Structure formats: C-alpha cells, structure tokens
C-alpha cells in the first residue's frame, strides 16, 4: 500500500522520472502493469486523485508522507530557502500568503471561466504563475503560462476549466504537503 500511495502521487507524466528516484526500489516488482493501472484511474477519475495524506499515512504507517519520498513532493522550497538564507519565519509567511492566494483563485478563476471572462482569466493565470513558481511548482507554472496565453488569445476555451481545476487541486495538495513538512 505505501508503494501504491506514493506511486499514485507521482504518475502524472512522471513515469520516467519516478524510476530515477530513490524510491524506485519500493515499486512492487517494478511491474509497469501496476503503473498503467493506477495511471488509468488517475486520468479516468480525476475527482479521486486527491488522496488525503492522513489516509496515506494510515495505510503506509509512515508519520509523514514527505519523509517517505521527498523526491515526489509537489512543492519545492529550495528557491525560497536560498533566497531567504533559510529564514523559516519568512518561508512560513510565504506559505501563508500562498494559501490566501489559492483561496482567492479558488473563487475567482472558476467564476471567470463560467462567465467566459477570458481576458481576466489570462491576467489571473499570469499572477498565479508567479505564486506557484516561488513555491517551486514548475509544472503548474508551465500549465498557468499555457492558460495565460490561450485565454489571452481566446483559443481552446474548452480546456480552461480542466486547467484551472488541475491548478487548484495540485495547489491544495501542495499546501497539505507543506503543512506536514518541517521547514
């Protein structure tokens, strides 16, 4: 179960990099069938993607998910640590700021999509891109950059809802992760 839990967290376009992490030996038999099985669930049932860390810890018996395999954490505080010289108080302030920003985006962005306010959505994505970049969420920064460009040009509007949903969901998971990570 710990392997399943950990594996399911990093399968989003991460199959190859997973094999290079220190956790590779924890994949049961390195059986790629399991990988594809979990990946299919990941794509088919997006609402099931979010697994509470408490549940993971309950199953895995590990106190903290992040200590199980740091290589698969969504957020990466190295940039903030470098910039602040490891000032934990400042880093906590930045995490709290990020939490407030996500709460705001959680209200604003889906509303902009609903109202087809694509210019506003593009601007919002631009701002959010900076927030996630500071938290070391480079994949989300790339996603938001794409959203910013697409929304500014009003192209592929059918994708916006899924992109916003992915961003919000990953951000919530990152925050939960950060709450359980010693700084």
């Amino acid at each position, binding site marked *: 179960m710990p392997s399943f839990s950990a594996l399911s967290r990093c399968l989003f376009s991460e199959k190859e990099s997973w094999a290079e992490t220190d956790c590779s030996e924890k994949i049961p038999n390195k059986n790629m069938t399991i990988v594809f099985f979990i990946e299919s669930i990941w794509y088919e049932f997006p609402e099931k993607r979010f697994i509470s860390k408490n549940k993971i810890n309950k199953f895995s018996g590990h106190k903290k998910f992040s200590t199980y395999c740091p290589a698969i954490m969504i957020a990466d505080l190295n940039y903030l640590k470098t910039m*602040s010289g490891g*000032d934990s*108080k*400042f880093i906590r302030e*930045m995490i709290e700021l990020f939490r407030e920003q996500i709460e705001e985006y959680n209200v604003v962005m889906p509303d902009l999509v609903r109202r087809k306010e694509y210019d506003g959505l593009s601007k919002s994505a631009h701002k959010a891109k*900076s927030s996630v970049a500071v938290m070391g969420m480079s994949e989300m920064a790339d996603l938001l950059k794409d959203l910013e460009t697409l929304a500014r040009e009003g192209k592929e509007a059918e994708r916006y809802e899924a992109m916003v949903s992915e961003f919000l969901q990953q951000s919530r998971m990152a925050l939960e992760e950060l709450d359980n990570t010693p700084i």
Partner: protein
Amino acid sequence: MLETRKIDQVTVVSLKDTDRLNAIIAEPVKESLLALFQKPHVKLAFDLKDITFIDSSGFGVFLSALKAASNNQGAFKICRVNKEVMELFKLLQLHHVFEIYDELDDCIQSFNQ
C-alpha cells in the same frame, strides 16, 4: 525607528537613521506597523526612499503588515523603491503581491481611487 506623518488621510511611514531593513530592526518595525493597523480602515504607505537593502525578515514585516491591513479593512502600499530593492521584490515575486508606486504622490492618490 519609524518616522510617521500624515498626508491627507494617509499615514506615511519611513525608516529613520538607516538605509537597511534587516533582522536587526525587523521586529520593532513590525510591532510599530501592527500597532498602526489596530484601528480599522487605516491607509498606510511605506516610503522606501533611501532604503538600499531589505532581507527576508524585512519582507516578512511587509507580509505581516499586508495581512494586518487586510484583516482590519485597511490598506498597505509601498512607494519609492530603489532599483536594487525592486529586484529583490521581483526575485521573490512579491511585486505582484504588493501595490508599489514609483512616487509618493501617486501612492497617496491611489488610496482615494
């Protein structure tokens, strides 16, 4: 430590006798700012003229002030940031977080818009 003056309805604060906002003075500066935000609807502009360096504890002070302002229906803005300090704001992506103005007058007027 903090010099305070009132222009129109805006409280303008600046640092006295120093060109740095760092860990040595961060805590008393923070306490003074938070005390100013104890009243509701306070409009406060932090004038960074002559400040040449801010460290993480200094940025932490601004984040606390912003939070205090927002919790008490106030507003916190920053002005006259020099080029080097602005680079630090940008490196931390905080230029998207704070309202920053080149000129004090523009900053003060923005509170009335």
